[in-house]
């Protein structure tokens, strides 16, 4: 079914009235942020706030992010809670569903501020993080950003946003490197298709640069409306160009649609690389055999080097998470727990819940963990973090790159569904 129109962002689901009334509540009295900020931690509880997408387009990824935050809360409290100076505070995270609408995420963060909550765990997606950042900036709140990888978030000069994930620029570039350095038959040409949200376009832009620097012929970029579920016209155009490799940058919804329609319309490529989608359990769930062979970049895998407080090594994290949630975590829960961990450690190092001192502690934070090294550049982005690359083999994402982390050799050209 050709989705002729831009598939409406979930704001469509949230009646404008709630959006409008709520958004205006965002204008609630935020002016009087006293220097110390209301110290939510004075009692025995340390409260974090999280606007997360439980319904709407990003619901799949949003739920995984929430799992990551919940696991962080459980593990920290199991270890006796957060030690602030002499006190031990129990970590309590409150969630509000932003229905995958960036404007709603901003409203929810403002409401958290009105309730005196200064520590925010980032919403899912760059658009939501971009909308939340100015609210946190003017209220003096701190955002531990777990899934807003878009570089533009860190170019506004904000001082309150700290991103634990590797920048958007690495997403497609690492896929290209993994194939070029690993494949027996190195592809000579690549076609890029991208959703039109800023994160996906940023990823595509850097991917094209990397592909050119590796000497591949790059076909002109094709963009499609974010959230589209029918990409048949895109597939038909790509088929006309006969590239060796197809790379798609977008989220879960578009990732699934592209692979299924590519099969339906008989697209012949050596393999498909996609950002975000393949590492989501829902991807293999909906595509079944079709998912095999698809390659994706990931922020973290369960054999990632590093060991740290509360979670131990990556393997310990994966083991503990599976015990608690019943499925092996891909990178979404891991980056969420890492963001929560960063905030907890910063508070412990600062020895106070005063937001300004915690912000200073975060900017100096440099610690090893299950997620690898966590530290932030002056603009709040973890600029030096690299990514790993996985390939779906027999229905399971398997690490194929970088060297030293591979769990299986890269199958290239990718196996084609019978």
């Amino acid at each position, binding site marked *: 079914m050709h989705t002729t129109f*831009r598939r409406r962002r979930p704001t469509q689901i949230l009646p404008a009235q709630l959006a409008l009334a709520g958004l205006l*509540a965002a204008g609630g009295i935020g002016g009087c942020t006293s220097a110390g900020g209301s110290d939510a931690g004075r009692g025995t509880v340390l409260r974090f706030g999280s606007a997360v997408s439980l319904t709407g387009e990003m619901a799949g990824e949003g739920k995984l992010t929430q799992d990551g935050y919940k696991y962080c809360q459980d593990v920290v409290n199991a270890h006796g809670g957060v030690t602030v100076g002499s006190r031990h505070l129990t970590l309590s995270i409150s969630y509000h569903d932003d229905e995958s609408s960036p404007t709603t995420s901003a409203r929810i963060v403002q409401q958290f501020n009105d309730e005196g909550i200064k520590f925010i765990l980032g919403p899912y997606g760059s*658009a939501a993080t971009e*909308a939340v950042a100015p609210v946190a900036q003017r209220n003096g709140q701190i955002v531990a950003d777990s899934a807003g990888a878009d570089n533009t978030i860190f170019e506004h*000069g904000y001082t309150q946003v700290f991103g634990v994930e590797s920048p958007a620029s690495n997403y497609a570039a690492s896929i290209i490197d993994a194939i070029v350095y690993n494949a027996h038959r190195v592809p000579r040409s690549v076609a890029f298709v991208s959703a039109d*949200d800023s994160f996906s376009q940023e990823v595509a832009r850097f991917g094209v640069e990397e592909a050119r620097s590796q000497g591949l012929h790059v076909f002109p970029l094709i963009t499609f409306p974010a959230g589209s579920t029918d990409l048949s016209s895109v597939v038909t155009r790509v088929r006309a160009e006969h590239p060796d490799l197809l790379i798609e940058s977008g989220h879960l919804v578009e990732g699934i649609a592209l692979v299924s329609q590519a099969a339906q319309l008989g697209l012949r490529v050596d393999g498909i690389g996609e950002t975000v989608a393949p590492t989501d359990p829902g991807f293999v769930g909906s595509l079944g055999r079709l998912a095999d062979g698809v390659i994706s970049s990931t922020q973290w895998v369960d054999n990632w080097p590093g060991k740290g407080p509360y979670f131990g090594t990556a393997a310990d994290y994966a083991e503990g998470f599976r015990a608690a949630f019943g499925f092996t975590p891909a990178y979404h829960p891991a980056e969420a727990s890492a963001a929560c961990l960063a905030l907890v450690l910063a508070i412990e190092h600062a020895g106070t819940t005063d937001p300004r001192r915690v912000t200073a502690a975060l900017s100096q934070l440099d610690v090893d963990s299950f997620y690898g090294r966590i530290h932030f550049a002056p603009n709040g982005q973890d600029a030096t973090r690299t990514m790993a690359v996985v390939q779906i083999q027999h229905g399971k994402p398997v690490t194929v790159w970088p060297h030293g982390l591979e769990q299986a050799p890269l199958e290239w050209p990718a196996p084609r569904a019978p």
Partner: protein
Amino acid sequence: MEKTGRRWLAGSAATIALAAGGAALPSQPLGTATSVLLFVTLAQSWNIIGGFAGYPSFGQVAFFGVGGYCAAVLTAQVGFSFWAALPASAAFAAAFAAVVGPPLLRLRGNAFSIATLGMAAGTRELVAILGVTGGGAGLTVPTFGPGPHTAYPGALAFYWAYLALAAVSLAVVAWLSASRFGLALRAIRADETAAESAGVATTRTKVAALALSALLAGTAGALFAFQQVVVFPDSMFDITTTTLMVVIVVVGGRGTVAGPVVGAVVFETLVTELHLFASRLDPLILPALIVVGVVLLPDGVAHLLPVPPGAGRGGTPRARPRAVLLDAVRRYRL
């Protein structure tokens, strides 16, 4: 006629001065009050074209969105301060209406509604494609950082801004209701052919009404964009925003001065408060209110009030409210 005009203006100014005193409201009621004031403006803006001229536009959100995006582009890409961008955005929205108006206003009834609905959706697609508006990725009104920016004035300042805008909208509609221009619009609503035979240049008058209504909606859009700081095509061009404006005027009373105000206060407060109580049901509250409101109050609450506030001079004395309500429902039943 002059007397009622002046009395009405004085009365509304007084109530608004009182409301300004309410600045001590805690943040949640302040949010509700601010939203009510926004919808008073939006409803009055729709009332001009939908109520007075009888052209039920279903694309008003296009002017709201165009005003908002114009402010965002002027501040983010051109470096204007917001307070300079505000009047420019209002004027731009009015000019936009003057351009899209003539072809649309040749149509009537459902065809006009659908054409305006299509126009608004088309405008959203256009904004989502253009580079200067940031496309689907949204655009940030700079309120911080090294480059030119306008400091974020805080919720109270926005409450006052929406208050001023609501007062202006009310005054404009009150003036309109008592003026030659308003009479011409009412004549067009009653019978456009006869109006033209009475010397009314109908197309020009209708386009002027659409531009005036776009001016108000555009200003509200610009203010809203500044308040949200980050604007997206889907949040600025949401069809439900138009529907709410229309429902508020219908439930309040089409073509009256007080109708939209009554409608905005009743409808807005009801939805926002209900949202707080039955949050599990909340997605269903708004649509249910739209359906119930329109079916039970097809001619609006204003007609039930004993004194017809500015509903046209010398209206016949009002029958008992309940009778009028049943009569309206009976009159429109198949």
